[in-house]
């Protein structure tokens, strides 16, 4: 319950570079570790497995999840500066795929591309 506000966020070390933007602004491509990994699902993934990037809406809040083709959520795309753009593109109907780079019970790294 720390009460952080968005304007308190500052760039620190680490990969805080926003995704590249070209064309209609939806040609996003980036690699990222998922947040809130669902350990039982992530543990069963292999390199190059493809995940579906989709929106999950709860009330007024939208989250971007990566899920298997069977609909099991692996984790969320939450910790990067291009998130609002990605949400906007998904709402326009743009499709993205997340390709698994590494996966374990506690960590899942993916490369995200436009379909």
């Amino acid at each position: 319950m720390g009460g952080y506000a968005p304007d308190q966020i500052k760039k620190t070390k680490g990969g805080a570079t926003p995704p590249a933007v070209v064309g209609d602004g939806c040609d996003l491509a980036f690699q990222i570790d998922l947040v809130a990994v669902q350990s039982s699902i992530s543990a069963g993934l292999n390199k190059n497995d493809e995940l579906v990037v989709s929106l999950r809406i709860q009330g007024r809040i939208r989250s971007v999840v990566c899920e298997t083709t069977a609909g099991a959520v692996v984790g969320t795309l939450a910790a990067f500066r291009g998130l609002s753009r990605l949400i906007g593109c998904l709402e326009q109907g743009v499709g993205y795929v997340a390709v698994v780079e590494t996966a374990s019970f506690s960590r899942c790294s993916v490369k995200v591309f436009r379909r």
Partner: protein
Amino acid sequence: MKALLMSGGLDSAALAHWLRPEVCVTIDYGQIAAKGEIAASSALCTAMRLEHRRIAVDLSSLGSGSMADRPAVSGAAATEFWPYRNQMLVTLAAMMLMPQGVTEIMVGAVSTDRHADGKARFFRAMDRVLSVQEGGVRVTAPARHLSTPSLLRKSAFPYDLIGLTFSCHVHEFACGQCGGCLKHRECVDAVYSRTDEQVI
């Protein structure tokens, strides 16, 4: 027996890793993000080989602020303020664990907590309230003097477990936009040399 209130966020996860309580307790009190907190806490405890217990009591009709999907009450220091939240969580945990012999309930408050129920005066008062009752249970906040980045470093919390943590206040799946998610990102960036989030 020492118990830790665990939400699955960075602070309680780091405390669990550092102090290894006999039991970690996650409470679904009707907050919007309850499912995410329970999933994260359960996975973290499994990974750290700690016992995890859950309490479910639907108090959503009494909540306010973003964690209850309602307007914040007047005077709230932040949008997620839920009146008497830590007092309620400590009490519920004590109600379940006192009969089983708990001696101490730890809370994952840190130095940057802005609400009154995250401050030293509150914890002194809660410690007094519980310790004068049957069971003599103590209430502590071992990281109250530390910031979240300092706690992550002191606890040697491994980056490999960061992916299991969950700090969202407003969604079952981390939204990346609320105060909890933004704090999570800021603190992880401050502590770990991340190799993720590369533009391709």
